[in-house]
């Protein structure tokens, strides 16, 4: 009897969950205001704050399975990783922006940025996923933000996501070490 009842309850739960999903899928996509421009971003965490970066310049997200620290480079160079045979440097933006340190864990991911000239990874404490944000919603940088050089920030969204300038990062002389090695 007990088992029968439990089975029934479980079936019921499954049915409810499936229904929820169906409803979620059947939802009309939110009509986007075509008058303004949208951009897709990847949201992630650095220290205690949430950041995002344009997904156009993101090649992929890669798990931090194993990495090799590099001796004799700046402290913000976290090390190098092997992405399917390609060796890429990883930058620790927390060190770069003088943010508080945080230990490594399972959630740590590497966001690989690339354009025609450069390709490297940045270390994220956690990656939340993709998001679409309205360019009109982005405001200027509040004066309280300190530490990070303002030149790397594009603005702050309504949800307090700090939008990083990926293009700027990719062409920064401080980060671009590739040349010197080459």
């Amino acid at each position, binding site marked *: 009897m007990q088992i029968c009842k439990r089975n029934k309850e479980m079936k019921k739960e499954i049915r409810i969950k499936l229904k929820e*999903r169906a409803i979620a*899928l059947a939802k009309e996509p939110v009509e986007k205001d075509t008058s303004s421009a949208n951009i*897709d971003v*990847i949201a992630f965490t650095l220290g205690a704050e949430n950041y995002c970066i344009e*997904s*156009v310049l*993101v*090649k*992929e*997200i*890669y*798990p931090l399975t194993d990495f090799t620290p590099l001796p004799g480079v700046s402290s913000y160079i976290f090390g190098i990783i092997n992405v399917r045979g390609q060796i890429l440097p990883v930058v620790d933006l927390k060190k770069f922006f003088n943010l508080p340190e945080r230990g490594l864990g*399972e959630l740590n*991911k590497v966001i690989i940025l690339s354009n025609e000239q450069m390709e490297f990874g940045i270390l994220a404490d956690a*990656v939340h*996923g*993709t998001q679409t944000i309205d360019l009109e919603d982005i405001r200027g940088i509040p004066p309280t933000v300190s530490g990070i050089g303002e030149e790397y920030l594009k603005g702050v969204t309504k949800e307090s996501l700090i939008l990083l300038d990926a293009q700027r990062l990719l062409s920064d002389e401080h980060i671009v070490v590739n040349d010197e090695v080459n």
Partner: protein
Amino acid sequence: MFKNMKIWLRFVLSFSLILAFLIAIILVSFNQIAISKDRLTRITKINNVYIQLANDMITAAKQTAIDVEDILLLSYQNQTSENVNMIKSNLTEHRKIYYEAAIKLEALIPKDDTKGLDILSQLNAHSDSAQLFQDKVTELALAGKPKEATDFMFAVSYPKVLRWIKTLDDLIHDNEEYNVSHYNQAEQAQTTARTWMLILGLTALGLSVMIAVYLALSITKPLKIATTLVTSRDLTMDISSYMKGGGELGLMIQTFSRDISEKKYAEQQLRLLSNELEIIIDSIPGLVFYKDTKNRFIRVNKYMCDVYKMSKKQLEGTNLNDLHSKEEAQAYWEDDLQVIHSRQSKINIDEPWVTKTGNRWVSTSKIPYMDETGEVVGVIGVSLDVTERKLAEEELKKYRDQLEDMVKQRTADLSNVLMEVKETVNILVSSSNQILAATTQVASGTAETATAITETTTTVEEVQQAAKQSAEKAKNVADSAQRVSQVSQNGQKAVDETVKGMNRIREQMDSIALTIVRLSEQSQSIGGIIASVTEIADQSNLLAVNAAIEAAKAGEQGKGFAVVAQEIKNLAGQSKQATLQVRNILNDVQKATGAAVMATEQGSKAVETGVKQSAQAGEAILLLAESINEAVQATTQILASSQQQVVGMDQIGVAMQNINQAGTETAVSMVQSEKSAKNLYELGQKLKEMVERFKE
């Protein structure tokens, strides 16, 4: 009805009765005075104020009428409006004064004064209408129509005002009437109080006089009776009403009457005793007298009176010297003095007594008379006439002397014969004495033997009984030992089975422990699987994110793919959640299996201890069985020997009975021979006595 009551109780009851009356007087007068005070207070504090207020109201009403007339006059003169306004304000002021007084007055009218309330309502109606008409007059006057106003005033307004004021007068008059009635009530209350106080006071006075008289009488009457009783000693008085109950005076009378009756009885007894004594003395045939230490007779008997030929009254108080010659009296007195000084009686002294008829003999006894302090206050004398006896004695003595002479001669003859007989008898007596002693010794020996034999026989019987009982007991012991042996064998078997069972339990415990260890290992491997599932979920999540990125890069075409990627991400999240739950459950399972492993280990240890203990129990039971077998053998031997003992004791019993019979027969014959020896001895003794008697 209060005769039996204690005096203090009577006083308390009487005074409390009077006190109750006094309290009643105080309460009644206080109550009535309070009523009259209330009424008077009302007259002074309320009613006078009331009249004052009414007078004020009349003044105010009249003032309003004057004001209206003033306005009218001014209107005739076409005066400035300033003056008119001043008077108008005066009018308003007066009305205000009137209403204030009216409100105060209404509050003061007592609720029970219906007539007053009635007049008040009339007054309100009249005042309202009068003021209405006054206003009309003022209006007309101010409108510049003085003539019409005057007409209207005299025709309509003025009578109304008069009526208003008259009603006020009525109100005052009514209140005065009310005052008079209140005064009357107060007076009546005072009169009532006076009357009650008079009645109650007189009653209390009368009652207290009555109680005082009653108390005095109730105490003095029994006291008078008691005094009379003590002084007159008259028991015929009627005191029956005091003979019961517990009042103090009653008790006093009871005690007095009892004492007096006891005293009277004692006096009567004394008188009887004295008479008796006199009769006894008078009936003695001899001289009986009682003299004091100055040789005077105090008491004498009839015999003495006859001898001296004087009456008792003459003789008592007379000195002995007046009755006898000087020498005789002196001799008697010296004899008396001896008794007085020595304090010793002289009893039955025979002395000659010289009478007118010849010489006679008297036997006189003189006894000193001592009072309570032990001092000698006189001499009691008794003299009996013994002349005849004295003569007879002298005759008898003569005869006896003759007889004695004869007897002396005879006795001398007999003495010789008896000497011979006596010797023979002495020999006979001594030999019979010896025989008796020997026989007595033998008899006592035999009796002792018989007693010893009887005791021995009894003891033998007891021993026999004991032997039988012990034989029975030994049999019982043997039987129970057999049973115990059986039981111990059963116990041994049971212990063996227990040991086997314990071993089986140990095997099963081992297999349980093995199973649990395997379970624990398997749960560990499940943990590994969960870890890999978690990793897969993580990777799929990442994959989903990457897919989303790719989809974003594809632009419009990749939109559908982006949704799918989002779904995959959700799924990855859910599977991660699920693995987390599984991980938790697995942790619980691992904890439980750990506890189970511990428990099985403890269980197998306990089982091992059980096995060891059951083995020890088996050994103990084996030892027990062996010792029981030995006990069984010992009891069998005891049984055999105790049966032999019983047989032996029976034989002893028979022998003892034979001895007992023989002893009894010997004792009987010994008693007979003792008796004959005694008879012989007694015979000798008698003979000896006879001979002795003759010897004298």
